[in-house]
């Protein structure tokens, strides 16, 4: 066996790590470990000079293993692997110790954090000794794309991809395309017609030679891996098998069921309506109460079902501006009608939105505030002596006084929440969900449309509530990512797969039973198991189940993990 020569690099991460970890001392201590040729600390290892340091040392000191102690490997493992590749070393002869997210950021005692960093690096050093070079493998990409959801996001992505002459399968659960945008009359902040935004796009999709639209259709489990997925879709009349290389999830969300907020009496009080219902009123062209009268007073209540621990804790983002849009539309149609806008905080971020607020606030509207967390407004039927239909009682936040507001129509600005079947979709395509059942992106800032499953992208409101421009941006971003993949023609597939040592395999077939990807088959002639490395995703479950130790999980071998444990405990004081 060749002599193991390890280089260890400890990152300060500016002050993020160096504030709590005595990096210089750690570096000295690590220098004494067996096989460590060089141990350095540097301000920013991920910077170009930091990476150059590694490249240079590999050449100068003839290193054949590298350990970087810095942030989470989920952040920069790829960066440093590339640095190894640059200097001609196999990228898998590398290990990272997470001394930022798992150490300096979560502890307060400098001595303890320093000790922990030393332990973690010692473990990485012990592990990296047993690392083996792994060869990259690539497979051809199927240039077709499956898009789930035919709202504005799905449609935008579909057109972007189809216009580049690539096949798109667009699956829609309902019988029509357009999604939530189809419900809207005008869009904020410029009060343009939503119909004009969506209608010509729907027509373009329906007539596009590269887009196949499936309405009233649901999907089965998606099988395969990036570049080569397949699934069965169920239309109202038949089942169709599709194969495709990438997936865009654009399933959107649904309005909050405001019946849950008892204070508002929705469903019982005739003229309490949701913002979605009011859009329909506006679309009809005439603003009247449900009993056919012209309203004298209209009240709008914000945050119905949003920003409240009892319902949804998050902000639904679009309701404030929608409310301002309503005010402008009502003022134009019925200049004599009094409008009461009962809000908690006015969230007017985004291009043109603050301007819309500024214009609206000058339009003779009564803006009143309430606390969105406690004492929600109480709506009740007015008596026959009152001149209005409904009365809203609440504590006005600025004055601190309990007041009553008259209204003939109350519009509840309902929030948005994930679809009931979000979990099924997440399972079908293999993406994770957050606590609010929105799909999780790979990285909130640096990789906002990809997911942890390669080849699967999440766009639009299924990822979090957002408005039309944001949804469209995400959709087109995902389309660009997919087109880039198709353009390159091939993708790298998982290399950290399992392999069977046929000499030790006893043919018990336990591994075949536990494999979630049916990647393992049995060779009848030789009575041994065999792993199809294209299907294997490297979870390692077979390796744990194998009674004879015949299965090796590459990059997570028994030897590597056991050495890591040993290294972790090697420096602990007794």
């Amino acid at each position, binding site marked *: 066996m060749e002599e193991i020569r390890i280089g260890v690099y400890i990152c300060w991460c500016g002050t993020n790590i160096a504030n709590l970890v005595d990096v210089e001392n750690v570096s000295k201590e690590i220098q004494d470990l067996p096989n460590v040729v060089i141990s350095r600390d540097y301000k920013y290892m991920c910077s170009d000079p930091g990476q150059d340091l590694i490249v240079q040392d590999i050449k100068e000191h003839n290193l054949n293993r590298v350990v970087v102690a810095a942030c989470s490997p989920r952040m920069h493992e790829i960066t440093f692997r590339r640095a190894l590749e640059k200097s001609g070393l196999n990228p898998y002869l590398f290990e990272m110790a997470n001394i930022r997210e798992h150490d300096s950021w979560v502890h307060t005692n400098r001595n303890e954090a320093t000790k922990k960093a030393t332990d973690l690096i010692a473990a990485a050093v012990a592990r990296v000794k047993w690392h083996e070079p792994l060869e990259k493998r690539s497979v051809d990409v199927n240039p077709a794309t499956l898009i789930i959801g035919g709202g504005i996001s799905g449609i935008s992505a579909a057109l972007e991809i189809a216009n580049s002459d690539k096949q798109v399968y667009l699956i829609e659960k309902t019988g029509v395309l357009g999604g939530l945008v189809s419900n809207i009359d005008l869009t904020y902040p410029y009060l343009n017609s939503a119909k004009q935004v969506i209608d010509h796009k729907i027509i373009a999709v329906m007539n596009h030679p590269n887009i196949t639209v499936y309405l009233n259709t649901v999907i089965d489990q998606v099988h395969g891996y990036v570049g080569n997925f397949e699934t069965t879709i169920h239309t109202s009349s038949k089942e169709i098998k599709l194969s495709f290389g990438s997936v865009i999830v654009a399933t959107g969300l649904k309005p909050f069921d405001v019946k849950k907020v008892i204070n508002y009496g929705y469903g019982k009080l005739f003229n309490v309506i949701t913002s979605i219902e009011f859009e329909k009123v506006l679309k009809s062209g005439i603003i009247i109460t449900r009993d056919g009268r012209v309203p004298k007073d209209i009240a709008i209540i914000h945050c119905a079902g949003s920003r409240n621990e009892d319902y949804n804790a998050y902000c639904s983002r679009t309701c404030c501006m929608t409310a301002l849009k309503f005010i402008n539309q009502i003022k134009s149609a019925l200049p004599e009608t009094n409008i009461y806008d009962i809000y908690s905080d006015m969230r007017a971020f985004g291009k043109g939105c603050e301007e819309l607020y500024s214009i609206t606030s000058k339009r003779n509207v009564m803006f009143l505030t309430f606390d969105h967390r406690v004492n929600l407004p109480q709506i009740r039927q007015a008596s026959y002596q009152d001149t209005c239909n409904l009365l809203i009682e609440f504590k006005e936040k600025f004055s601190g006084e309990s007041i009553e507001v008259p209204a003939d129509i109350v519009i509840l600005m309902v929030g948005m929440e994930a679809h009931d079947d979000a979990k099924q979709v997440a399972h079908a395509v293999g993406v994770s969900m957050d606590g609010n059942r929105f799909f999780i992106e790979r990285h909130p800032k640096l990789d906002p449309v990809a997911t942890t499953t390669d080849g699967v992208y999440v766009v639009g409101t299924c990822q979090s509530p957002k408005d039309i421009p944001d949804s469209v941006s995400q959709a087109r971003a995902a389309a660009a990512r997919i087109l880039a993949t198709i353009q390159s023609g091939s993708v790298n597939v998982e290399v950290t797969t399992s392999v069977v040592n046929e000499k030790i395999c006893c043919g018990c077939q336990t591994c075949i039973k536990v494999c979630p990807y049916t990647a393992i088959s049995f060779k009848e002639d030789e009575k041994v198991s065999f792993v199809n490395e294209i299907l294997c995703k490297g979870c390692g479950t077979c390796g744990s189940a194998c009674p004879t130790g015949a299965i090796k999980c590459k990059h997570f071998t*028994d030897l590597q993990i056991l050495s890591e444990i040993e290294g972790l405990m090697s420096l602990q004081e007794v």
Partner: protein
Amino acid sequence: MNQSPKIVAFLCNWCSYTGADLAGTSRMKYASNIRIIRIMCSGRVEPTFVLKAFKEGADGILICGCHPGDCHYHEGNYKCLRRFHLLQKYLVQMGIPIERLKLEWISASEGVEFAKLVNEFTETLKGLDPSQIKKTVETFS
């Protein structure tokens, strides 16, 4: 009583390790005596790994995976759960208190829960004496 119990944790890459990263990016504070080992799936945790960590002197072992139904590899966490139950029985046979081994589900968004879990487990282990397994093994080998 053990003032600084040593914990070795096996965290799956997709949910729990990410959850622990989130605890970091959100600057949660938790006890510093935990050392995390990354594995791709909780289904990869072999009983041998747990026993090895005990043998090397760990006072407690924590295994974290995705919540049931959320496994990145569909069902690795169920495999982990089955092995965990068997392993518990084995630990009883070996005279190792089963409180020393803990299995919890931590999702990618549960940074707060992870920090809480580490602190609670540390408290549990503080209530026990330091593990004698390493010494026992050394004596008999």
